[in-house]
């Protein structure tokens, strides 16, 4: 077993006196190459936890290490940020330049990547998110979903080992969401990038290796998606819901149908129901 790329040891964090316990006693290990999905109610601490992973925030007590480097050590920050990139909830917060390709080049430039290499990375990143033809446009004049893709390209160009996506598909249309998710899965499979994916769309958690459920600053479930999605009552308590098909499977079971556990997709449901007919 390889050693964790990110490790949180008993971390606690508060923004100010009124919010002393935004993260409470979190212990967590993330292995290189894992695809982890974090879900949880608004305000449960997902973004705060994610910011711990790339040293945007450091814990009040406990330690966070990235590849063995303590994030609280100022001299480690540069290396930590090179290893762990983050695509934020709102792409406008990330847009820094007036031309798309300059915006995407910003990260690698900051890291001192040679110009020819930057050119190649920027082109590649823009093609990956299907925005290459917009490379000379002004990012602030793009549509919401287009901006989201530019933000993702900006992180891809840094070529980090770990990418955190904080609700990065929230503004995409169904197809765009599918495409971006596919892109992320491909990066994960082909380049072995560790993915930490924060979302409110439960369907997007179906293919993750692990799902973390957060509530009130704690990780209260940490398991494979099938094991999470059979706990529908508990999930509701934490403001979550099942993917639509899993919810339907639950209702059908309540009505006495003998459906196997773990039916999360349309294909599986069609198979299962055809067998019953």
């Amino acid at each position, binding site marked *: 077993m390889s050693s964790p790329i990110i490790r949180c040891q008993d971390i606690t964090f508060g*923004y*100010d006196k*009124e*919010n002393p316990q935004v993260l409470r006693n979190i212990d967590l290990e993330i292995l290189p190459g894992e695809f982890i999905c974090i879900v*949880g*109610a*608004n*305000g449960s601490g997902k*973004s705060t936890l994610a910011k711990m992973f790339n040293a945007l925030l450091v814990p009040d007590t406990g330690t966070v290490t990235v590849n063995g480097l303590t994030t609280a050590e100022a001299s480690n920050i540069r290396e930590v940020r090179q290893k762990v990139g983050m695509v934020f*909830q*709102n792409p*406008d917060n990330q847009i820094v330049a007036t031309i798309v390709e300059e915006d995407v080049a910003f990260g690698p430039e900051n890291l001192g990547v040679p110009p020819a290499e930057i050119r190649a990375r920027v082109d590649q990143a823009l093609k990956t998110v299907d925005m290459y033809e917009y490379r000379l*446009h*002004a990012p602030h*004049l*793009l*549509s*919401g*979903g*287009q901006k989201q893709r530019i933000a993702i390209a900006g992180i891809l160009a840094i070529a980090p080992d770990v990418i955190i996506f904080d*609700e990065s598909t*929230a*503004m*995409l*249309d*169904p*197809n*765009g*969401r599918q495409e971006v998710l596919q892109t992320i899965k491909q990066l994960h499979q082909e380049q072995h990038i560790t993915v930490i994916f924060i979302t*409110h769309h*439960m*369907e997007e958690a179906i293919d993750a290796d692990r799902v973390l459920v957060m509530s009130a600053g704690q990780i209260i479930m940490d398991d494979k998606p099938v094991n999470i999605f059979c706990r529908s009552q508990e999930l*509701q308590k934490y*403001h*979550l*819901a099942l*993917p*639509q*098909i899993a*919810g*339907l499977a639950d*209702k*059908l079971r309540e*009505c006495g*149908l003998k459906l196997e556990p773990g039916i999360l997709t*349309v294909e599986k*449901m*069609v198979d299962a*129901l*055809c067998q*019953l*007919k």
Partner: protein
Amino acid sequence: MSIKITNVEYIYSPNTPFEVHALKDINLHIDSGSYVAVIGQTGSGKSTFIQHLNGLILPTAGQVIVNNLDIKDKKQRRKIRKEVGIVFQYPEHQLFEETVFKDIAFGPTNLGFSEEQIKEAVFKSLKAVGLGEELLDKSPFDLSGGQMRRVAIAGVLAMEPKILVLDEPTAGLDPRARQAILKMIYRLQRTRKLSIILVTHDMIAAASFAERILVMHQGRVVLDGSPSEVFSHADELRKIGLAVPPVTLLCHNLKQSGFDIPDVILTAEQALAAILKNLEVKEHVN
């Protein structure tokens, strides 16, 4: 309070290399009190379209008439703005006051509500979006993404508009909050007779709540009908970047595998009933 849109065209940055023809030949009549969902691929023109409804953007050509008032007329536009409330995409950009209370109170204050009315409007809309009063003294910038969004919606609700336009209001909300906001919007339409125009990428929401769905593609309205009409065009929708709700797809596939199922299923409840019917029949036959 009906909306009439005739031959509307909109061009961003005309006569520059970045010219974008964002709306093309839009013709629509939206009845007072109706619930209309607008769906369409990223960049299809949805946000551009809804900004015409209160004159934030004026049409390059064509006419927008709201409640018999012409949006191009400056005086009439001011009246229209009182009636048409828009919750923008990324509404957290609408937040700017130092406390949540002041932020929600901004609209009603501007409209000249009395102190008492302002207070009432703030508390009422805070409750409608499901936030607790303990947040009222916090800075809106110290809230989580989902909390900010709810504050922004509350701010528009507090002005008590007759037409409520929401651009992706549920993006970033957790499943419970998403459901709560959608139900709240639906209730506002039913009880206060508000017209609702909901821009969304959430096909499940469009299928469950809207009476009418407009599908936009490359600046045009390419489909316009009831949810069952629109979602019966699964292939066309897929081609333009959209999808049908998972249960709609499921029932379509079951039908092709020999299940006896109505043409277009829109909700999990409908799917449940239709599937059970098929399997019960089987038990009798056996």
